[in-house]
């Protein structure tokens, strides 16, 4: 417990958290506006031209009010979890960048406890980011939905499930970040690699699956969920989308990555020499 407090104090006593927090806030606002612009309830058929029957069906379901709403209520997730992952990675790489690993492990030679404290502290940080964006979404999204001429949808259990799974996504990305920070100890390398892989990986994967999906068949499209950012987006979809795996699969995939990253990180940290 002392270790978790110390890790939280480490985050609090430097300026990284509020800089990334500010970036997150700006990106959240942008995302919300973009989502608003891209939202249309029960879209007209011409926008589905050039799509396969299945893709058209996906678009139709995605445009149901409840799914539009859950997309809006989880606005900011794409960049939010990226920032949480970066902060979590920095929680680890800081120790090497500023050579404080020596001090940290002198105070606590049991290194697995240190990694565990970092995982817990980062998860709490991730949940804080989630809480703030969610509160902001709950304040602003009803106005947007009103402008789209539908109700707030807050009576729909699907919305609350999406919000809950969104929290899980933030927490899991924090764990992924800690694991990644152990694997890539260089602060700059970790930050650049993670951002690049996250963003390019997302758009690259989306494109590849969009093009190849219809040709290779259903089984290939279902592999989308293995791409981490796609997995976390799947988790926050309001109702089950046709042609997509159930939401819990997204959660399982992310948990899998988090366990591997956290476990591998702890194992490496335990055996490495701190020089």
């Amino acid at each position, binding site marked *: 417990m*002392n270790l978790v407090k110390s890790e939280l*104090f*480490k985050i609090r006593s430097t300026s990284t958290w509020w800089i990334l927090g500010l970036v997150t806030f700006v990106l959240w606002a942008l995302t919300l506006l973009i989502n608003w612009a891209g939202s249309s309830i029960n879209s007209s058929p011409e926008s589905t031209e050039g799509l396969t029957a299945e893709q058209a069906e996906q678009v139709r379901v995605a445009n149901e009010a409840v799914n539009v709403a859950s997309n809006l209520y989880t606005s900011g997730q794409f960049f939010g979890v990226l920032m949480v992952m970066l902060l979590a990675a920095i929680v680890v790489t800081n120790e090497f960048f500023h050579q*404080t690993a*020596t*001090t940290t492990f*002198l105070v606590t030679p049991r290194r697995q406890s240190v990694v565990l404290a970092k995982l817990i502290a980062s998860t709490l940080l991730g949940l804080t980011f989630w809480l703030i964006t969610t509160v902001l979404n709950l304040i602003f999204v009803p106005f947007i939905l009103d402008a789209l001429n539908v109700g707030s949808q807050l009576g729909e259990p699907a919305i609350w499930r999406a919000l809950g799974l969104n929290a899980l996504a933030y927490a899991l990305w924090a764990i992924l970040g800690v694991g990644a920070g152990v694997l890539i100890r260089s602060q700059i390398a970790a930050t650049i690699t993670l951002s690049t892989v996250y963003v390019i990986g997302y758009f690259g994967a989306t494109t590849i699956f969009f093009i190849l999906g219809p040709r290779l068949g259903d089984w290939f499209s279902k592999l989308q969920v293995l791409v981490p950012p796609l997995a976390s987006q799947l988790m926050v979809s309001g109702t089950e989308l046709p042609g997509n795996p159930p939401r819990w699969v997204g959660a399982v995939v992310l948990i899998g990555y988090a366990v591997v990253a956290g476990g591998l990180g702890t194992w490496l940290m335990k*055996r490495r020499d*701190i*020089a």
Partner: protein
Amino acid sequence: MTAGSEEIVVSHLTKHYKQLRAVDDLSFTVHSGRVTGFLGPNGAGKTTTLRMLLGLVTPSGGTATFGGVRYNDLDQPIRHVGAVLEASSAHKGRTGLNHLRMICTAAGLPWQAADEALAKVGLTPAAKRKFKGYSLGMKQRLGIAAALLGNPRVLILDEPANGLDPEGIRWMRDLLKALAAEGRTVLVSSHLLGEMQQLADDVVIIAAGRLVRQGPVGEVLGSMAGMTQVRVRTPQVEALTAALSARNATVTPLPDGALLVTGLDAAAVGHTAFTSSVELHELAGERADLEQVFLQLTAGKAGIR
């Protein structure tokens, strides 16, 4: 760990990296109540040894214990052992006070200990300044403050004099001597030998990862008595040279006209001159200092490995 049992015992400690034996079957003991200088040329394995002592580097073989307990097995280690390893080991954007508070929190010490430690090293005025604004001397002081937080019985410092001005070095010397006088065990590594001669009670000298000599400073210097040099000045250079050479001493003329005699002590040189009826204008025994001893002992073992 009970009081009075804080001896550091290093036993057959070994660390090899691929081809290189950084530390090679090293054994020595550090006693409490004394300042022990840990000496060796750069790259001798001092830092690796200290890091193995503190559980940061895993030894390939051998053990290092504090009062019989390995560092990683100590309960709340910073209450037993304080260590200063790198001067620049704090987050640049964090204040000095918060750096210490962070350690206090992790170790379950009250934050008040942070203020006290800062006061002890004279950093209170800079408590709220960020680490990046600290001078090298202030960074060293902060490192020492961190080491003192848990009021440990053992202190380990790696090259603490690096980057300190003469006033800072003097401050450090007085502090470490005072800590040893309180019965604590103090181990200080350095390649600055002049400093050790003034500070250390005992020395452990290593080169190329191996123990070269260990013992009280006076004893290690004494063991080099054979190296004693005597400086003499005489108008009868040839007569004295002949007489001294007859007693197997080596005589080297110095540029200023004096002679440097090795192999005999000052009394023997004076006696030889007297019995040979040679007039002396100057006779001075030059005590071998740690620097010379050190260079002799580690000669040929340093270098890049």
